[in-house]
């Protein structure tokens, strides 16, 4: 499970979501093509709603945040630069950031409301439940399984938990620098395992 051999499993992720199609569609969206945007939505809706839902947890809130994310995608499409990454990566970064911004804002608000009343310990799902996902899920689960448990926890808490690495450090009770490194090393391993290229 932790035996690492970088050459062993370097294979591309099956492009279930049509990565190149997305790049082309987004270029059309950038010119105000609403039909292309609808197609873009059809190809990315499950991914973006899924990741937002994973972070915010509340389905009604997830719907709202996903809508905001799509509005961002529409507005900012003219600035999408393929040289900096794929449309899929760009869109999921936008949606994920929308989600974490929302939970952090909520967190700050409820922290204020609670005033100095004792804060409830933060709860989190220890590992991702990927029962709902499709073809990529198996690959991703395998790749996650190959991380050290410490790396996996750090990546999962940060990404799906929507926590900052500082928060992750508190949750896991390890120094911030350690979490920073675990996230980075974990992502490097995932990248290599999944054969990801921008």
């Amino acid at each position, binding site marked *: 499970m932790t035996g690492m051999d970088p050459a062993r499993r370097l294979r591309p992720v099956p492009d279930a979501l049509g990565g190149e199609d997305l790049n082309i569609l987004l270029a059309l969206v950038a010119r105000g093509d609403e039909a292309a945007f609808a197609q873009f939505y059809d190809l990315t809706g*499950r991914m973006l*709603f899924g990741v937002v839902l994973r972070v915010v947890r509340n389905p009604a809130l997830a719907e709202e945040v996903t809508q905001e994310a799509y*509005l961002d995608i*529409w507005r900012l499409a003219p600035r999408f630069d393929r040289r900096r990454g794929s449309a899929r990566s760009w869109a999921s*970064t936008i949606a994920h950031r929308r989600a974490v911004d929302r939970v952090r804002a909520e967190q700050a608000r409820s922290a204020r409301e609670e005033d100095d009343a004792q804060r409830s310990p933060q709860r989190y799902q220890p590992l991702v439940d990927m029962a*709902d*996902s499709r073809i990529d899920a198996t690959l991703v689960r395998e790749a996650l399984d190959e991380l050290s448990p410490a790396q996996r926890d750090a990546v999962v808490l940060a*990404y799906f938990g929507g926590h900052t*690495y500082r928060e992750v450090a508190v949750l896991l009770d390890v120094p911030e620098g350690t979490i920073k490194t675990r996230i980075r090393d974990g*992502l490097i391993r995932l990248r290599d395992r999944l054969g990801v290229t921008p």
Partner: protein
Amino acid sequence: MSDATELHLLAGAYALNALDPDERELFEAHLQDSRSSQQDVAEFQETAAVLATAAAATPPSSLRADVLDEIRRTRQQSPLPAVASAAATTGPTPNAGGSSRDRWRSLAAAAGTTLVTAAAVVLVAVGAWYVTRPDPSDIDDSIKEAENVENVDALLTAPDAVVTTLHASDAGDASDVPTTTIKVVFSSERGQVGVVAGDLDAVDDGVTYALWLIDDSDAATAVGRFVPHNGDVSVILDVNDAPDHAAGWGVTVEPHGELGPPTPPVHFTGTS
């Protein structure tokens, strides 16, 4: 967190949106100068996107109609921003080779916002800089002046020397506070520019002041960096491929590393 290596380690956390706002901003500034961090961020964001696909879940069917309805009523942003929207989440644009140029004035006008996107400033010269600073213990105002004069004297004797005074671009509402100015002495012939100032605010670790030469088309070219010592600056910067004249000068605060596009806000500016 003053050091580029240290910042480089944040690429993973950045790609997972796991930085505090302050650190995010710091890192984005660093990103503009660091090709290797840009590469890491791109790959890590791509990796995160695969994680996202694994979390896929079917949204309520009403969402599609809502989204499509909303975009019809929403204007798209310009593809050529002077300043990136805070919501442009994928990080700063790497230098694109300088095919276009940022307009300095639009940058100056956008003081206070986040990041300059593109790349666009052509980086003609990054001059080596040096500070001639005597033992600070024997500095009083007059000596300070004298030293400044001495230091920049050689430049002032150049037949083509031009002196420009830069003013704080945003004095805020503290109008009763004496405004700090920066004097810039430029000699095209010598390919040098002198920077003299007193009472400058100190800068944090990890950043310095940077001087920009503004040309007639309002494009800014990086000249070099300087840091005040006890508020004083007296430095000479080399200007490679110096133009005949400068339309103006600007001063920003920039993180360490290669000088990329200027980072708002513009702290001082003046026209020759």
